[in-house]
C-alpha cells in the first residue's frame, strides 16, 4: 500500500479521470431524459436557490443546536445505561433488566413515533413544572432514542476490555466502581469512538424530525419556502446543508479507523 512517488501520482490521475468520465455519463443521461426540463425548473432554479440561501442556513443553525445539545446528553446518559447493563451479580438483576427493557424499547419504536408521543403527549399532561415547549420534547425524544443505540456501542466497548484488566485493577484494591471509572471505561470509550461518531451522523439527520412538532428548523423552513413558491429548490439547499455538516464527521471517523488499524499493525510488527 504505497501511495507516494510516481506510482502514487499516477493512481491519483487514474482516479481523477475515471471520476470525471463517470460524472459526465451521469450528467448526460439525466439531462437527456424526457422529463429533465421540467425537473430542472422545479428543483434547480437559480433564483430560488439564492433566495433559499438567505433563510434556510439560519434555520439550519437550530438543527446544529439540537444536535449539539442532544449529543452531550446522549454521551452521558448512554454510558449510564451501559454501565447499568454490565453490573455483575444477582443483586443488580433489576437494574440490568431495566436497562435491557429500555434499549429494546427505544431501538424498537420508530423515532418518529417517539417524537410524536412525547412531543404531543407530555405537554398535554399539563403537569405543572413540566416544560410545554415542543423543541424541548423533541430533543428529549432524540436523546432517549439515540441513547439506546449509543449505550449498545458503549457496552460492546466495555465487553471488549479483557477480564484480566479488571483482575489487575481489583487486585490493587480498587473497588468495582473505581475499576470501571479508571480502567475499564477509558479503554472501552477509546475503542468505540468510530461507531459512536457513526451514530452521531444518524442523529444529525434526525434533527429534521423535530420539525414534525412545529419548531422551524431547516427542513420545516424549506417546506415553507416550497409552499410559497411552488418550487422544490429549497429542498435541494437543505439537503446540501445536511451533507456538508456530515462530511467532517464522516471523514473524522474514517481517519480514526485508519489510524487505529495502523497502530495495530505497528504493534503487531513490534512483537
Amino acid at each position: 500500500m504505497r501511495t507516494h512517488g510516481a506510482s502514487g501520482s499516477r493512481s491519483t490521475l487514474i482516479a481523477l479521470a475515471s471520476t470525471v468520465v463517470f460524472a459526465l455519463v451521469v450528467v448526460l443521461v439525466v439531462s437527456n431524459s424526457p422529463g429533465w426540463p421540467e425537473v430542472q425548473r422545479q428543483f434547480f432554479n437559480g433564483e430560488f436557490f439564492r433566495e433559499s440561501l438567505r433563510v434556510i442556513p439560519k434555520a439550519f443553525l437550530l438543527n446544529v443546536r439540537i444536535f449539539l445539545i442532544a449529543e452531550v446528553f446522549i454521551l452521558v446518559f448512554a454510558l449510564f445505561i451501559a454501565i447499568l447493563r454490565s453490573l455483575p451479580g444477582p443483586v443488580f438483576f433489576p437494574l440490568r433488566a431495566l436497562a435491557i427493557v429500555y434499549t429494546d424499547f427505544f431501538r424498537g419504536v420508530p423515532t418518529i413515533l417517539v417524537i410524536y408521543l412525547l412531543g404531543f403527549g407530555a405537554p398535554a399532561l399539563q403537569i405543572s413544572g413540566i416544560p410545554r415547549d415542543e423543541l424541548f420534547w423533541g430533543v428529549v425524544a432524540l436523546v432517549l432514542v439515540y441513547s439506546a443505540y449509543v449505550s449498545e456501542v458503549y457496552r460492546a466497548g466495555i465487553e471488549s476490555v479483557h477480564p484480566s484488566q479488571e483482575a489487575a485493577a481489583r487486585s490493587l484494591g480498587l473497588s468495582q466502581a473505581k475499576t470501571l471509572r479508571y480502567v475499564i471505561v477509558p479503554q472501552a470509550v477509546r475503542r468505540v469512538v468510530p461507531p459512536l461518531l457513526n451514530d452521531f451522523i444518524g442523529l444529525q439527520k434526525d434533527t429534521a424530525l423535530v420539525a414534525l412538532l412545529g419548531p422551524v428548523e431547516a427542513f420545516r423552513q424549506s417546506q415553507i419556502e416550497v409552499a410559497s413558491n411552488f418550487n422544490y429548490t429549497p429542498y435541494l439547499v437543505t439537503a446540501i446543508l445536511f451533507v456538508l455538516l456530515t462530511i467532517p464527521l464522516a471523514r473524522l471517523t474514517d481517519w480514526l479507523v485508519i489510524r487505529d488499524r495502523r497502530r495495530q499493525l505497528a504493534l503487531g510488527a513490534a512483537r
Partner: protein
Amino acid sequence: MSAETVLAIEGLQKSFDVEVLKGISLTLEPSEVVCLIGASGSGKSTLLRCVNLLEPIQAGRIEFLGEEITAPGVDVDHVRRRIGIVFQAFNLFPHMSVLKNITLGLTKVLKTPQAQADQEAADLLARFGLADKRSEYPDRLSGGQQQRVAIVRALAMRPELMLLDEVTSALDPELVAEVLDVIRGLATSGMTMLIATHEMSFARDIANRVCFLHDGVILEEGPPAEIFSAPTNERTQQFLQRIIEAGRL
C-alpha cells in the same frame, strides 16, 4: 516463630464446572518464599487467585495475618490492597503511562497525594532500573520491562504478601533473567512470597519450601533440596523427569 503467620490456607476447595482445587492446606511464615510447581492445569493460578479473593471458594478457609479473609462480610478491597499479585501476562493498563500505572492504586486506594505518589513511584522505578521509562506507555516496553513495571505496581502498595503467577512464562528467554533478579532482590529484602513457577533452578535457589501441585492436590512439600533431589512421590518423580528431559533443570 514469634511473628504472626502471614498466610494459612486450610482445606481449600474450588470448583468451576469441575473441582479444580481439592483440599489445599498451606502456610507461609513471615519472609518465607514458597514455590508452587506442577504441570499446566494443576491449579497453581487458581490457588493464587483464590488467595487474592479474585475467585470465590467452595470450602475451606484462608487466614491472612490472623484474619479469616474468606469469612462473609470481609472487605475484599481492603484485603487485596495488602496482598500484591503479579500475573503471567503483566496486565498493565495500556491507556496509562508507566508512572500512572503505579500511582493509580496509591492515589485512588491509599489516598496518597498525587505529588507524593509520583515521588514514591519514581523512587521505586529507579530502584528497579526503570527510571527512564516513567513516561512511556506499556506497549513501548519490552516484555521484561513490562513485567518489572507490573512488579513495581504491586510493590508500590506495600503489600505484606506477594503472589507471583508464572511471571516469566510469557517472556523471551533472554528477558527472563532480569525479572528473576528482581524477585531474588525481593526475597533478600524479606518479602513473603508465594510463587507459581516453571523455572525449576530458580525455585531451587530461592524457595524455602517447594510444593508439588498435581490435579488440585499438594502431593509433596518440602525444602527444595529434598523435592528436587529425592522426591518420594511417584508423580513428583515423573514430573521432574519430564522437566529434566525438556532441559529445564
